[in-house]
């Protein structure tokens, strides 16, 4: 049987993992334990397991932070017209069409090898289409599937580096990055380089970097790999928060969860060898 103090300590630990500031986490745990004691109940019986309660509290506290940002809505941020991509004789993409406005989410789905990542790279501009036209807003955020962060830099150093590209000051970059990280339930530590973060937390960093400059269009290539269930849900909440704030979001995914909430579903057929 866990003592109320042990439950409180666990709650603090889980709240910290959920991105709550240490002082606030301690106060919340103290209040919760005190409230349970005054009600004559065991905190575990009253609130349930500390990990589950921390998730609920974390979501509640993050909600005001995730309020929509003030952005213009409605303009076309990405237009693909008859986009094709061939590698030698192999056609990876054939006649892809999509018009994405600000305030919309498009999901790109398809089997392995159907060209999902290739399409995202074409939208980003890191790969050239073999045919068709790609029109895209210049203010873009981009989270590639892999190798999008430096293993030897901390989260704050990433924020400064990416912020410099967006002509943001170091202080503003770190403040914005830390705030966005909290929305994904993560409190970045100053002394941990990306290589020492878990796979899921590295992906959170990847996602945060794509949103640092409040882009008009966010391109995400399966960024939730390594996320636990809670973070996965937070991620989709975040995607819809960006949409509600007026950004266009293009997400490459192979999971069908939440696809009924997206505005466009682009299903790519398996690439052919002809």
């Amino acid at each position, binding site marked *: 049987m866990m003592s109320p103090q042990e439950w409180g300590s666990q709650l603090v630990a889980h709240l910290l993992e959920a991105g709550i500031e240490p002082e606030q986490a301690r106060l919340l745990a103290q209040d919760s334990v005190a409230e349970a004691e005054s009600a004559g109940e065991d905190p575990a019986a009253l609130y349930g397991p500390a990990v589950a309660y921390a998730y609920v509290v974390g979501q509640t506290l993050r909600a005001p932070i995730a309020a929509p940002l003030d952005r213009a809505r409605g*303009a*076309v*941020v*990405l*237009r693909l017209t008859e986009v094709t991509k061939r590698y030698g004789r192999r056609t990876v993409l054939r006649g892809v069409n999509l018009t994405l406005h600000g305030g919309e989410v498009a999901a790109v789905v398809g089997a392995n090898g159907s060209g999902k990542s290739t399409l995202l790279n*074409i939208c*980003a*501009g*890191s*790969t*050239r289409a073999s045919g068709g036209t*790609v*029109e*895209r*807003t*210049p203010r*873009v*955020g*981009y989270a*590639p599937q*892999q*190798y*999008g*962060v*430096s293993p*030897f*830099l901390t989260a704050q*150093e990433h924020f*400064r*580096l*990416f912020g*410099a*590209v*967006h*002509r943001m000051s170091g202080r503003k970059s770190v403040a914005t990055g830390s705030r966005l990280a909290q929305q994904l339930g993560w409190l970045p530590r100053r002394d941990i*380089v990306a290589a020492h973060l878990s796979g899921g937390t590295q992906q959170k960093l990847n996602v945060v970097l794509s949103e640092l*400059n409040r*882009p008009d269009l966010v391109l995400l290539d399966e960024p939730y790999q390594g996320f636990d269930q809670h973070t996965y849900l937070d991620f989709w909440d975040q995607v819809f928060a960006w949409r509600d704030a007026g950004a266009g979001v293009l997400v490459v995914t192979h999971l069908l969860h939440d696809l009924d909430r997206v505005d466009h579903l682009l299903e790519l057929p398996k690439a052919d060898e002809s």
Partner: protein
Amino acid sequence: MTLTAVSAATLRELSRRRVALLFVFVLPLVFYVVRVEVPWQALRFLALGIGWAVATLALFSHVGARRLDQRLGVIGASPTGLFFGRQLAVVVTGLGLAGIYFVIVALTQEIPRLPALALLLVTTVLISAPLGAVVSLVVPRELEGALALLTIMTLQLLVDPADAVAKLLPLWSTRELSAYAIEPVGEDYLYRGLLHFAVTLVLCVLLAWVVSYFRLRPVRLLPPA
């Protein structure tokens, strides 16, 4: 802004690879110590060791950052800033290494022309950083690139420097400048060394910059009409 931010980030990355930095220091030391009894050879081998270490550092720095730099290019970073930012960090690290070895050599050898020793070490660093970048662009994988550098440096060590073909190798100038630093030779050695250095530097920098510019530059996409 991109240049200074990339340079600062690269220096932080390098500073965290402590074992790699240790070997960057040890490699030239080994080259120097095995020839320490023959001063002109010790100097030339030391320069080649520094060149090899710095070129390898540049190679790994550019190869390791390729995907990240592509991402930064997509969101608006200047390809020129990305390239020269990484180069600046490698050159600064290399000059620090050169500074340490300048002191070591000055304390352990009779060097008649100390400024020429500094010139030898600095020119070696300045050539090696873009040389590593060139190799990283031609052979964009770490192991293959390291083997390519090994081949170049082995050639540099084994080919008779008096041979005309040796002048085609990137660090031939080290032979002229090390001779000028330590032997009673005329200034023609200095001029030949500096000329070879200047030509090699310009070629390596231009080649690496132009190729990396086109590799890191994203496709130009028009805004939606």
